[in-house]
């Protein structure tokens, strides 16, 4: 699904990622954890296609294609979905109109028939129930004045509608209360399937009580310093990140 090799990324001449290697197979859920400033969000942003990040070395292959050569919208059309930490508020664009446009844009790019108004309404209703979002929000401007939880629900609704092959959740759980956290976890768990992978970037272990990952990676100082199974997350919760720093420090770069 996704193969990252020796990825080095800089922003404004400062190297943030210093050689990341990661292999995500279809159906797997990978958690990427790490302290603030470790490069977690940089990794997520590079996958999403933000242009302000400069890839200085390495490669990212998505389904056999060079991801770094794909435009942002091409990535979305090819089945990559990024749930943002801070979804943008867009005044004047109604949520329902936005959802219809994106669903049909992606369907069209994938060679599927566009949905008509009735089919679209049915699909949106079905998914909105899944994420427990208030239907009234559909009429409002996208994310405008939404509470933190509503914004995350809106992101999960988009994910459910676009049915990606690879979903990246960038600290989607940060700042969420337990109800909202469950919404995010439920959405991911319901969408888990053999041919769909997830990369969950998180600062807190708590989300992983609800989403059981196949692999856990610890990112520190721009490198993956440790990988393991779900138990690694528990260990981190208990011991913090400092013990890894010492461990990493002893390994030559």
């Amino acid at each position, binding site marked *: 699904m996704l193969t990252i090799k020796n990825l080095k990324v800089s922003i404004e001449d400062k190297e943030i990622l210093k050689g990341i290697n990661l292999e995500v197979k279809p159906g797997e859920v990978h958690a990427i954890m790490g302290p603030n400033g470790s490069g977690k969000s940089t990794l997520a942003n590079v996958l999403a296609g933000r242009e302000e990040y400069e890839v200085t070395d390495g490669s990212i292959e998505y389904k056999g294609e060079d991801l770094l050569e794909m435009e942002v*919208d091409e990535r979305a059309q090819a089945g990559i979905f990024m749930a943002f930490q801070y979804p943008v508020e*867009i005044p*004047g*664009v109604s949520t329902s109109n936005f959802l219809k446009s*994106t669903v049909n844009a992606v369907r069209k790019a994938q060679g599927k028939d566009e949905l008509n108004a009735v089919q679209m309404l049915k699909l949106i209703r079905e998914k909105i129930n899944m994420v427990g979002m208030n239907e009234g929000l559909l009429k409002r*401007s996208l994310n405008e004045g939404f509470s933190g939880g509503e914004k995350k629900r809106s992101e999960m609704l988009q994910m459910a509608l676009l049915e990606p092959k690879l979903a990246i959740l960038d600290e989607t759980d940060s700042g969420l209360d337990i109800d909202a956290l469950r919404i995010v976890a439920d959405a991911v768990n319901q969408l888990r399937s053999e041919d769909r992978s997830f990369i969950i970037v998180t600062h807190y272990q708590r989300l992983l009580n609800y989403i059981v990952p196949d692999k856990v990676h610890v990112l520190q100082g721009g490198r993956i310093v440790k990988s393991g199974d779900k138990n690694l997350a528990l260990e981190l919760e208990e011991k913090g990140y400092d013990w890894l720093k010492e461990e990493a420090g002893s390994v030559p770069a």
Partner: protein
Amino acid sequence: MPTVVQDRYAEVKARFQQLFEAQHIQLNGHASHPYHQFRAEAIKKLEGLSFPTRRDEEWKYTSVNRVLQPEYQLETPAEVTAEQLKPFLIEGLDAIRLVFINGAFREELSDIGRLPQGLTVMELDNALADERFQEMVQRQLDSLMEGQTDPFMVLNAAFARHGIFIHVAKNTVIEKPVYLIHLAAPGDVPTYSSYLNIVFAEQSSEASFIEGLFELPGAEGAYFNNLVNRFRLKPNSHTHHYRLQQEGLEGFLISNVDIEQDGDSTYSSYSVDLGGRLVRNNLATTLNNQGTNTNFYGTYFAKGEQHIDNHTFIDHAMPHCQSNELYKGILTDKAHGVFNGKVLVRKDAQKTNAFQQNSSLVLSDKAQMDSKPQLEIFADDVRCSHGATIGQLDETAVFYLRSRGLSDAQARAMLQHAFIEEVIEFMKLEPVKDFAEQLIMKKFEE
């Protein structure tokens, strides 16, 4: 000896006078008709007036030079079929339709049918011969010309052969709007057209007027539409005035809307400016008494080398009046936009609420927007605010939309549309709103 400053547009004035004379010869004894006299006085008045230059403060950002250069003819003939008119009919709108082409009224393309009770629509010359209206109409025509110093207003009057009078009777609500289509069918010869409408709304009446200014698809050439609307609103009357404009690439439009409101009356303007090489809109209201509402909602979207200038003036002379003004628009390529919104709150106009906002998106380095809000307040117990913003599209929003699979062009179109949507939302008639949206979307896709 005093120096004689030569009028740089003397030749232009002479050409218009010749055009007038040529039309006059064809009148065959109708020259004594009061409407013709009104027009004859107007052309005389033009003699003493000068066309504005950029040295005039009101025309600082808009040069009329380009507008006045072509050698115009009047009512150049044009073949237009009902089929060709179809793109400009508003789906789902049952309206009384008046169609004008190159300045001439075209009955065969119009759909007037039986007018609703309380609504009168007639040509101005007939109205002046109708004893029910002659005095009223004469007064409105006089008020347009009294002390008039704007040569475009005078020019309009001189050539407004097919001016229209619309009267809404007391206590009548007219559900069926009046839709005036001014279609330009330019060709090899540049065409000049005057359009003059006098709308008289009696006490407690309510009605909607839509003006559509378009170019015949496939036609090409220079033309100049000079439009004047005079609204006289009696107490407690409500008037909705829509103006949708998609003139051609070589079309010039100068529009003047002159409103006079009695107490408790409401005038709402909804304008959409999409076309034209050079467009100048003057929208001005005078408030005679307390409790009036004035709403000026405008959008503009200019591309290429288009120039769109909106000048508005609200004269708050009386207390307890409210005005809302929102103009939003988009400029790209080398387009130039101008907004000048003057709000005067006179000393006696206590408890005035006046709000004004102009926001523009400037999408290219060579596009330009000049925005000048002018708020002059002489009363001390008022709520007034104004603001002007000029900005670009929010790139984080563009990225967000693209990350959901929309192309760069789709994302930008969606955001631009959202930007002007706020103004379109004020439109009361749903079919007109939908039609306006379609026109805007089409322009985004161009």
